């Protein structure tokens, strides 16, 4: 074996040792590093998601008072039960304001049953939707008084100028209106010689699905399901009790 051959052999041996060391020692460690890097990336994503969830939750906590007031207000438009008495009060008030006589109210279920509960249960709008309560109202008044009355009934629940919901009474959807001269006293009432009309209005009120309370068990200070007021989670953020003003 010449000296040159020996050098070649040495180089090959050194390279073999280097390759072996790389494959057996360094490469597995580098793979381990890669695995940990992936774990770090996953953990960073999870942390980012969790932080965003926490931020949302904290925002929800800070909005709670407003949300509670809104839900209570919406409960006036769509109550958890039939609340026919309050509907009658509202209709009477609206008709008085617009010089219209509120003559009658009747529930108008598909079978014509006078039972409000039957009507309400008959026309369920879906498992998660509102329950419909069809009614027939009869009013008496002048033509333009009816216009004002309809405007008033619509204004119980309507959009405000800024697009937000304005709730001052029950949400009603008028389906049909029939105006005809009043049979008994033609030409009487209505003011200024205008003939009196009988207005038969079929409309639908809505009720929350069965089992859903107005606030779903929430109180002005905390929602249903909160144990402690989340002291550890929301350190420093205080929740002021919600106040909802509802005019009768």
């Amino acid at each position, binding site marked *: 074996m010449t000296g040159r051959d020996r050098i070649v052999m040495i180089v090959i041996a050194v390279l073999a040792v280097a390759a072996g060391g790389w494959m057996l020692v360094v490469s597995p460690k580098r793979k381990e590093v890669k695995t940990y890097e992936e774990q770090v990336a996953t953990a960073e994503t999870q942390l980012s998601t969790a932080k965003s969830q926490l931020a949302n939750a904290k925002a929800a*906590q800070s909005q709670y008072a407003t949300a509670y007031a809104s839900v209570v207000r919406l409960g006036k438009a769509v109550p958890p039960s039939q609340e026919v008495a309050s509907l009658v009060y509202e209709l009477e008030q609206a008709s008085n304001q617009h010089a219209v006589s509120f003559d009658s109210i009747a529930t108008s279920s598909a079978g014509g049953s006078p039972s409000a509960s039957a009507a309400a249960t008959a026309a369920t709008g879906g498992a998660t939707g*509102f329950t419909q309560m069809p009614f027939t109202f009869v009013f008496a008044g002048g*033509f333009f008084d009816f216009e004002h009355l309809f405007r008033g009934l619509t204004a119980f629940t309507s959009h405000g*100028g800024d697009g937000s919901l304005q709730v001052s009474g029950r949400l009603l959807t008028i389906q049909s*209106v029939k105006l005809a*001269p009043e049979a008994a006293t033609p030409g009487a009432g209505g003011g200024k*010689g205008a003939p009196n009309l009988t207005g038969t209005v079929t409309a639908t009120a809505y009720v929350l699905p069965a089992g859903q309370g107005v606030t779903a068990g929430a109180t002005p200070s905390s929602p249903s399901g909160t144990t402690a007021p989340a002291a550890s989670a929301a350190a420093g953020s205080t929740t002021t009790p919600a106040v909802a003003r509802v005019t009768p």
Partner: protein
Amino acid sequence: MRAVNLIPTDQRSGASVGAGRSGGAAYAVLGLLVIVAALAVLYGKANRAASADKSKAATLNAEAQQAQAAAQALAPYTAFVALREQREQAVAALVDTRFDWAHAIHEFGRVLTKQVSITSLDGSIGGAATSTAVPTPPPTGAAGSSAAVTSATPAGSVPTFQITGCATSQHAVADTMQRLRLIDGVSEVTLQSSTKTGSSGGGGAASAGGSSGSCGPGHPVFAMTVTFSALPSASASAAAASAKTSSVAETTVTTPSSGGGAG
């Protein structure tokens, strides 16, 4: 004289260059040392990075769990706010799909003239041509499912009015049809009948307007149907409402006198 190579045999060119007396073993050891050192450096770096990443991952996981636990503790608040959104959207959808009866009545009063008196006005909203439910988008972060609120007057329903009344002449009936067509939202006005009454008057349609209790002699009794455009979807209606509020346009309306017009 014969030439003699004075260079020692092991130092002559071509004979084991650089191998030295150790025969290259020294180079081999040196190379191995370098390689081992390089491998050790690489291993050390990798090991340090691995342990750093490991502890970082553990820290991040712990932070994430802490944040998740905190968010979980506040989940009822999120759910309640989502409930509020869901209800608001449902109520808004119902509000947006209502027909504006007051406006329609107002418009009838505006377009009808003294030559016409109305004996009955019967408005109703027909069945939906398309959908029957107003879908509300699912609230953000809501635990519950999306709600499809069924409106009594769903989008696509067509409001129609059956009008019967008296006119002073057939010309007035035609005029009335033309004017009814001017009502905001009216898509079609169709005449069912317009029949002149006999000299005795009456003709079956009792007038509610004016001093007379029935149609005058020779005055036609008419019946027509006014069809409005189909109710828009909640989103379209909301968009229209916002556009309406943004451009405030004052309009002057004239109402018919109490003697004629709608009665």
